């Protein structure tokens, strides 16, 4: 059944063979980085077009979902996984990393110390998740709060070098506040994920079982031995 090749069962779905081939993808993307670098703001800006100075820890939500009409044949559902507000001491559960296909590592351009932590996050990421073929998942570095003073003291060419040396796919200066470069950064990451996806399509294991309510209900109708 390979991922989500079955398109949305729209009104015309019953018409059978006439349904256009739309490819649907679900991508889990992680957003990691130190406390207060703007991870939640970036997600909120990107998904809900909102920005607020008043930061509140997100309660009860695993991820934000953005649906992208990538092109006429491709629909991308992007799950952006924030680190749950309080897993901030860096002790992420494996559940969080599991099956991610891309990541943003965010630092705050106005606080140099958050840049220093970038590699720690990258190492943690690489040690806990990788693509089925064993290579690291595409990761984009976000220099957030570019509307503020640059404290990290790195020139663009130094940043390019840094990314190259440390396995980042690329980097962007972003501002969730002024909505700078966020769409571009996501687009860049998704392009990379899609490229990976083409080369190494998900081999879906049909035996996997997802426990959920539906199974419970559907199954209670027909008792079998």
């Amino acid at each position, binding site marked *: 059944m390979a991922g989500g090749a079955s398109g949305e069962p729209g009104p015309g779905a019953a018409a059978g063979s006439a349904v256009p081939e739309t490819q649907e993808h679900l991508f889990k993307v992680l957003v990691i980085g130190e406390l207060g670098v703007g991870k939640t703001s970036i997600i909120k800006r990107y998904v809900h077009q909102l920005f607020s100075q008043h930061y509140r820890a997100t*309660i009860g939500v695993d991820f934000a979902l953005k649906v992208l009409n990538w092109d006429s044949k491709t629909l991308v559902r992007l799950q952006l996984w924030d680190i749950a507000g309080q897993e901030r001491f860096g002790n992420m559960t494996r559940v969080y990393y599991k099956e991610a296909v891309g990541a943003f590592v965010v630092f705050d351009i106005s606080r140099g110390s958050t840049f220093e932590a970038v590699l720690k996050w990258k190492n943690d990421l690489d040690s806990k998740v990788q693509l089925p073929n064993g290579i690291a998942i595409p990761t984009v570095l976000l220099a957030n709060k570019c509307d503020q003073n640059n404290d990290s003291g790195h020139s663009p060419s130094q940043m390019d070098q840094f990314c190259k040396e440390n396995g980042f796919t690329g980097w962007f200066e972003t501002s969730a506040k002024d909505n700078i470069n966020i769409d571009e950064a996501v687009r860049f990451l998704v392009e990379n994920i899609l490229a990976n996806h083409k080369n190494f399509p998900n081999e879906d294991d049909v035996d*996997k079982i997802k426990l959920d309510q539906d199974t419970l209900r559907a199954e209670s109708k027909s008792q079998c*031995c």
Partner: protein
Amino acid sequence: MADKLPSEFDVVVIGTGLPESIVAAACSRSGQSVLHVDSRSYYGGNWASFSFSGLLSWIKEYQEESDGDEWAAWQELVLEAEEGIALRKKDQTIQHVEVICYASQDSDEHVEEVGAVQKNPAFVTSASSNDPPDSTGTACSDTSELTAPLSEPETSQEVPDVDATLGNENHVGDADCSESPLEQEKAENVPVGEAVVDVPKKNRITYSQIVKEGRRFNIDLTSKLLYSRGLLTDLLIKSSVSRYAEFKNVTRILGYREGNVLQVPCSRADVFNSKKLTMVEKRMLMKFLTFCLDYEQKPEDYKVYEECPFSEYLKTQKLTPSLQHFVLHSIAMTSEGSTSTLDGLRETQNFLRCLGRYGNTPFLFPLYGQGELPQCFCRMCAVFGGTYCLSHAVQCLVVDKESGKCKAIIDHFGQRISAKYFIVEDSYLTEKTCSNVAYRQISRAVLITDRSVLKADSDQQTSILTVPPEEPGSVAVRVVEFCSSTMTCMKGTYLVHLTCPSSKKTAREDLESVVQKLFVPYAEAELENEEVEKPNLLWALYFNMRDSSGIDRDSYNDLPSNVYVCSGPDCSLGNKNAVQQHQMPVMQAFEINLRTRYSQDVQESSRTIYQGDPWLNSIIVSFSALPYLCTGVQNDSLGRSELWKVDMIWLPTRPAFLKETAPHSSQKA
């Protein structure tokens, strides 16, 4: 990176095992602020799963000498009107750790797990230099030096008795192991270490390959399965925690009889497709199983035997001896003699009812190991605002002398963190608190092998096998074998877990005879014919784990009333014990009381139902009421707080295709 912890919470949970994690998630979901800490650097405590290098680090941890049992400095931090209950500094629940490597170790001494950044690869790369002086072996196999009998038989049982034998073990001349039935004499002559392994045979898996592919392993410390209609499965579904994990069904139930491993037919399809059974046997078995499914309906069929052993009852049931054997050991999974007919029927019924829900056997397991489950509940807790700190030890509980209640903890930094309720996993309590507690022990073995105990068309089988006791009175050994598609071991290997209640001194003594029945040591097999029936043993680990389940609260000395103890894993196959502990805070006096009230209240749809402790109420609501919350029928009548509405928010954000394209939804047609 950690900024300082807040100094106040509603609930502090110490230990990240399954029961503690369930409680933490429950508290967090019901709006309590939760601090969840573990002194270890990983989630799960004795419920954890490890990569191969992670497991080696774990083994090493238990080899290191204990540096004092208790903390020293906390006394100064306790005030006049308070006293402290010290917590344990180093875990004492694991004993008699023994490692045996059978796979050949090739010349490359500096093997590292690919991508093992965070762990301690030093241990892997230079096992010999890190070996404690009392180890019986080294990575290079200079056999002449291996014979010193270093693991003394009289080693105190209180001290973790660690005996890591990396390298090709050799017990020749070793007094206390001379009767070691794993005949190793041949192994002595097999070149290992830097010697001539230039011509590795194809498909032979070497130790360095295991190390290199170490990340592919997720090795459980505790071997359990989920009954497809068990409490844990229900809890996972109803709490939506199941969304964080994926599961598979055990594919085969195996039995062991007269030296052979056989597949036990248990579902209707199995029985009819079985080539091993005669037509008559098929009919007999079907008839009996059908009866068991609703045995209560026909009391006349078993009433007389109710108190007799189940094995005796089976003899009266027109079943051939082999069928009796399989029903007793592999379906009811009970032991000879000790189980009554009524219990046997109940277990058989439970087994049969779980069939077919997700597959042909009653059992489920999470991909990537059991260690996923505590983490799933921890994630849920964190998503609802719980604070997580690993590698964070607690020195003591601070008790207010006047009220007798616990009011705070003092952590390893000396920071005081106050809370209303405290949940502590048993292993954190000291000797002083537990002096009256009688613990049992679990014997465990973890094996890496090169093929399945029972060959089949597909090499991707997951099996459970019960090996009955050799002599009456001893215990059956439960064997669970995972293939690589369970994401718990590398391709070309199988991960085998053995579990039984301890009866002899060490896990190895308890389990080695079963290991010999089912497997052949790698080196030995190599010399024999290629056509060896039994799987080769590549690597083995034995250890004992303390079983702290089923301990009465009153057995702990001086436990303040707002401190609750969670037990570690028990020996049983299912997770009933772990799940039932989520009711732990409401156990004792509260439980019965509130539970009866709860059921009445649901009927009355009253809003002012819980007048007692609000926290206890919220726990009751969060769990007892889950069926109602999830169906969305009785939300308001339960006085559900706004928090529960989050459920409603979740629904639309959940991608439709993450749900199963229900195979059952054929009603449209």
